[in-house]
């Protein structure tokens, strides 16, 4: 008998309830909820930053951040980078990037999270190896809470996706909070359609 059969048999011997559907989960929506405002607040709590839109050029402040960066990888047409991603690249080749710039699939107001899927990232390490990330997010693509987030269709299509809630962080030594653990040191979001 294979281990698979052994385990499944053992489970079925002790526990084999009649088929039934699991509990239904409500969406827990709140009345009068300012989704965009809540997103911004939550993102700040998680250590992320909001980049304001410039008056003449909406990307003015993004560009200002990138001024001194040596290696920029941008997947966004409005921002020019100097490092291109190609299909056959090894994921580690992204190690020298100072700033990654890309667009997120959606955001979550409850937690200030943005969702980066393998389609958004092209190469998954773009979310983690750069020193800093700048993420564009369409405010219309912000959902209220995690219930909405996990009801999105993306999860059934992608092979990889992650909710990023601020930059990487650790408090493993004496509880001292450090932003920028193994992943990016900062995460900034520009809300733009």
């Amino acid at each position: 008998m294979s281990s698979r059969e052994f385990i499944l048999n053992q489970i079925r011997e002790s526990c084999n309830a009649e088929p039934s559907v699991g509990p239904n989960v409500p969406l827990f929506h709140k009345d009068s909820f300012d989704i965009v405002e809540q997103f911004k607040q939550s993102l700040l709590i998680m250590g992320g930053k909001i980049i304001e839109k410039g008056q003449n050029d909406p990307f003015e402040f993004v560009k200002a951040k990138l001024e001194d960066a040596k290696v920029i990888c941008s997947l966004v047409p409005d921002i020019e980078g100097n490092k291109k991603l190609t299909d056959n690249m090894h994921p580690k080749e992204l190690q020298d990037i100072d700033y990654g710039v890309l667009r997120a699939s959606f955001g979550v107001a409850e937690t200030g999270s943005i969702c980066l899927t393998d389609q958004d990232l092209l190469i998954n390490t773009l979310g983690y190896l750069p020193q800093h990330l700048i993420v564009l997010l369409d405010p219309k693509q912000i959902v209220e809470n995690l219930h909405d987030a996990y009801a999105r269709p993306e999860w059934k299509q992608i092979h990889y996706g992650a909710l990023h809630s601020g930059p990487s962080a650790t408090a493993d030594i004496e509880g001292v909070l450090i932003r920028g653990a193994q992943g990016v040191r900062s995460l900034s979001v520009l809300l733009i359609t």
Partner: protein
Amino acid sequence: MSALQDEAQPRGAKIKGNKPVDQLEAANRFIAASAHQKMHDERLWDLRKKRDAQMHLISEWEELRELASDIKSHTLDHLADYLEEFERNAKANGVHVHWAKDAQESNQIITDILKEHNAKTLVKSKSMLGEECRLRQHLEENDIHVIETDLGERIQQLDHEDPSHVVVPAVHKTRTDVSKVFVKTLNAEQGNNDVHYLAETQRENTRPYILNADAGMTGGNFLVAETGAVVVCTNEGNADLSANTPPLHIVTVGIEKIIPKMEHLAVFIRLLSRSALGSPITQYTSYFRGPRKGGEMHVVLVDNGRSTRLASKKFKAGLKCIRCGACMNTCPVFRRSGGLSYGSVYAGPIGLILSPTFNTHKYRNLPFASTLNGSCTNVCPVKINLHEQVFAWRETLADEKELSLSKRILMTAMGKLLAHPKAYRTAVQTGDKVLSYLPHFVVYNKLNAWGRQRDLPPAPKETFHSWYAKNYKNKGKTDE
């Protein structure tokens, strides 16, 4: 501050083969290291307070706990079906699924996968199951270099210690302790105790390993049957790096981590980090549904005693655990003892009820490292009746003749005495002088454990019993 810097780090329980772990002995040494103990207590209590603050922000908090508990119970009742559904969907996504009866088989499967790929180095994010199976030790015996990528876990690996807490593995260490480890192992500057410096040192040291590793490994917080996906929650980004940089990603996960649907996942993600660290969510909530282009993904489903536990009506509820550590943070005994005092992979309240399922004799003292205060049950996001399970374990230990001799003798004697009013009165009022002013369970203890650090109330002139007999002559009934 200087006390914290000078004090040597207290070490964990002394493990002597299969002999019962003496948790108290290690706890006493932890308490004696008073600066460490104080830091540990305050830090974990701070997590508890942050958890409370998050709870008060979520009006549906108790409803979420109820849902989480119901989802887990439902899943355990249909565990085989959901595991098959997961396997089907994961395979359809291109994931290789393996099944392991026990730690040994799991370790072998993982070693074989690595050898097939000629992998010599493995970057690994935190996995309690990995600790449970002693996976790292096994791989190293097979000449595979393993690098823990989580900061806390890395500290513990470099210090040759087990994690002392499921979420914050080095919570018992001070910055000085960490500095000493890094000076010895990572060539860090002597005497530089700056936490930012220490964290940066580890980041810079770990990064080349991540970039050049042959394989990456993560645990799994949840498996979603409906989509065949593995969900991993971390703060440092190390799981995503470990999984996404090398060409091979291996997941090791316990079979009880499965949940049916994506809508259920939302409930757990809302509860997990709020309960664990008091943050609304972990920085990264990662979802692996299939291998990336050019990569390979394996999931090893591990039983290691779980299906046996499932058969136990009494202790099945422990399988609902999502390893948030909230029970440890709130446990007053854990905060004073340190996680390593338990001498077991799982410490604190959840450890008291899980450890004896692995080895009843070795961990027979653990269910007594509790005052049965019940705070753990209240903070548990999946509503495991932890303190009731601790209570139930004591009965099971007594039934299985696993109580210490001193407990057995004392309880038998007390049971007899307390069942016989005349004998009891004689003992209290006329017989033993000591009994006339000490609660019986105290005086039966030869070492006078009560009096070592506590004073005794002055002995009253008479007991309530004799006062009543004098003042209420016609009341009560007595056959005296």
